[in-house]
């Protein structure tokens, strides 16, 4: 049984199954982000990008069968047995999950594995080998990188960087550094799979998946903060902020005092898109703007009287003649109160 999904469930809070699935695969719609924030799962976004619906349902079914979770009305909740299971088995604490937005870890993994493999084969002067299977785009990126930087020094430089990375990982967790180095593909071996590592380290396969994702975010963070060959390989895959460029443009105009409708007009975008930018930013980067300013005082008063208690229980009911506008105000107010709830 793969216990990965237990990490995303809570004993105290029933959670929407589809939101959890979307968090794993990283579908950052406003609704998903809102609920992910309510569940304190924002930094788990994109933790299992390969997960498909059948696999997800299969894992949930197995956990339910084992009595560790309960499922009602498309919501999932940890059972008492689930809590004691977690207390009784080693749970890995991620160290790099705050960097969840930094990169698509699947692409990082593919590019990094192939890059290191190419350098390893180069170190052995071997040209006849099967490259690790990665998409065409990653093959091209690695090829270009290698042709540009291949030299006697490259092997030494990569060795030094891996040594640094290894020392940093070792400082965080012994298992992290083991998983990282045992999984690398090279001339000396094709590395160990998640399943093999989990057996070797005596961990559940779900735990291994957490460690693997953590290592990939760690590599990404390393690439962000260095300038050597690994950075040059991976930097094109790194995001500069949790918000997209387009989202930033909206926020910057907002800061200059431009209203939402005017932003939409100037940027030739739908008002709905601009509102999504605002809501996304209010969740992922709450500090970049005073969001309350976007709520007309009349609406704010109304919302204050109408909605009390935990924001997760609020039901939207329109009050004016424009449902989209009302919903925007409702969601924004909900996000603001919600972030106060979460401290």
């Amino acid at each position, binding site marked *: 049984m793969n216990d990965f999904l237990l990490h995303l469930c809570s004993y105290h809070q029933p959670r929407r199954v589809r939101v959890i699935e979307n968090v794993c695969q990283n579908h950052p719609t406003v609704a998903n982000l809102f609920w992910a924030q309510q569940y304190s799962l924002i930094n788990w976004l994109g933790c299992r990008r390969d997960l498909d619906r059948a696999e997800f349902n299969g894992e949930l079914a197995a956990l339910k069968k084992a009595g560790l979770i309960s499922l009602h009305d498309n919501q999932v909740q940890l059972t008492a047995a689930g809590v004691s299971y977690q207390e009784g088995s080693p749970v890995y604490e991620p160290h790099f999950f705050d960097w969840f937005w930094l990169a698509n870890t699947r692409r990082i993994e593919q590019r990094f594995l192939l890059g290191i493999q190419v350098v390893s084969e180069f170190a052995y002067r071997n040209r*006849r080998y099967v490259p690790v299977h990665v998409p*065409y785009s990653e093959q091209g990126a690695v090829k270009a990188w290698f042709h540009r930087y291949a030299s006697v020094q490259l092997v030494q430089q990569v060795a030094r960087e891996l040594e640094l990375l290894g020392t940093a990982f070792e400082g965080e967790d012994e298992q992290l550094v083991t998983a990282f180095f045992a999984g690398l593909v090279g001339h000396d071996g094709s590395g160990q799979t998640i399943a093999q590592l989990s057996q070797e380290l005596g961990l559940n396969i779900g735990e291994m998946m957490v460690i693997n994702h953590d290592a990939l975010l760690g590599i990404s963070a390393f690439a962000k903060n260095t300038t050597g060959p690994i950075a040059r390989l991976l930097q094109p895959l790194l995001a500069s902020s949790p918000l997209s460029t387009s989202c930033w443009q909206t926020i910057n105009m907002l800061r200059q005092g431009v209203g939402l409708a005017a932003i939409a007009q100037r940027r030739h975008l739908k008002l709905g898109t601009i509102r999504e930018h605002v809501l996304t930013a209010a969740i992922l980067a709450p500090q970049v703007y005073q969001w309350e300013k976007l709520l007309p005082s009349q609406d704010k008063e109304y919302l204050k009287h109408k909605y009390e208690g935990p924001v997760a229980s609020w039901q939207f009911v329109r009050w004016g003649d424009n449902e989209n506008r009302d919903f925007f105000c409702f969601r924004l107010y909900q996000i603001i109160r919600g972030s106060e709830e979460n401290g």
Partner: protein
Amino acid sequence: MDEKKIYQELRQRFGFTEFRDGQLATIKAIMGGHNTLAVLPTGGGKSLLYQLPGYLMAETVLVVSPLISLMQDQVDRLHRRGEKGAIMLTGQVYGADRQRLLQNLANYKFIFASPELLTNQAVVKALQRVQISLLTIDEAHCISQWGPDFRPEYLMLKQLRQVLGDPVTLMLTATATPAVRRDIIQKVGLVGDQVVTVKRSVNRPNIFLAVDQCQNGEEKRARLLQMVTQLGGAGIIYFSSRRLANEMANWLNTQTKIGVASYHAGMSSADRFRIQQQFMNDQVKLICATSAFGMGIDKENIRFVIHYHLPDSLENYVQEIGRAGRDGKQSAAVILYAPGDEQLPRQLLTVDLPPADLMQAVQRGKVDEKALGPDYQLFSFYLKHHFTPAQVELAFTRRKKRRLAQLQVMTNYVQSAECRRNFILRYFDESATTQERCCDHELADWLETGILAKRVPPSLKSPSFDWHCRLASLLNLVKN
């Protein structure tokens, strides 16, 4: 074409001095400009059949293949030989990447493509610009509705062939009944007497055939454990689901010291790559797979193939056991059977037909094709090609009937008191044979008498992992 030249290429490029049975006849037919249907048993070295002529011809070889895993395997094989001019054109490459790839297509000697991509106009245009000197249709039986693996996209190949200017065409299959052979030629748009057929027996004399009758699932498990601890060498065990493949691999790892790993489409591509390489290098001895695995695995010394569940057709069974004994040495194929096992594939064959109004809505583009359920691609193909919902229903009823009949053949094989080898030969319309070490009907205590060498207990576990050592070996560093 000069036979000398062919042999020279074989020696210089591939390092062999002799052809396997059927290879030379096929290559000579292709080089003579004939469309060729090659029905050669798995393990017959089919990649050579298009690679060698490919090198002798000036232009590009296009290989159509039904599965990405199959293509990947062929590309890996070429890479291992140092050939870099091989590329895969699949649905996994899209957008700007695909455009770039299509522009550079002329740089490749071997282009592997999935059939659904060959219905794409941009792809076809790009292929037209490249001179295709040999069109290879891998697993050609997929074009036949009479076979168990019918892929509707394969029906588009007839048109593709015309658009590419009727290049010499090689149709490859390992198992095809006479009806399927006729069907292949017709569906590719050829006429029987214009096609050279090179056919060799499906019989693989070095594979011992057995069925192990068990009372229930528990006995099957115990029997499997007994087999894998006794039978020496590398093996593949086929399961009906990913979950079982995973579970049994874990279980076998706790029960034995043999390296066991699961392998299926649910794993990351990096992990699949790792297992393939470890299996090739004998670090992993046993693979627990779903049937999608090893459609073309390139390992010569697989000693046995065990089916933990009933395969869905004799065609597929013969293909899957064909992974064993490619080096010609004694090998074995075993089915573990408990009463009622035929119910599982029967359930898997039950494809739910979507309601007619839903199909219509999809056809009009009002509803996403995924609403058609887990088999949406199949339905979608027919709808895209202007089948009415009633016609789709008819096609599927027929298909289901055929597949149930194929499953019945498989059940008969398992329960038959007849020599298993002759059962298979009769099904493929070949004449009966007798041989030593044939099947469990002649040699009931085959496991005990040691058809295969006994497993040598593996040596002690490797020392504990040290990341500094791995780093040094990874980059060939001199340790100080």
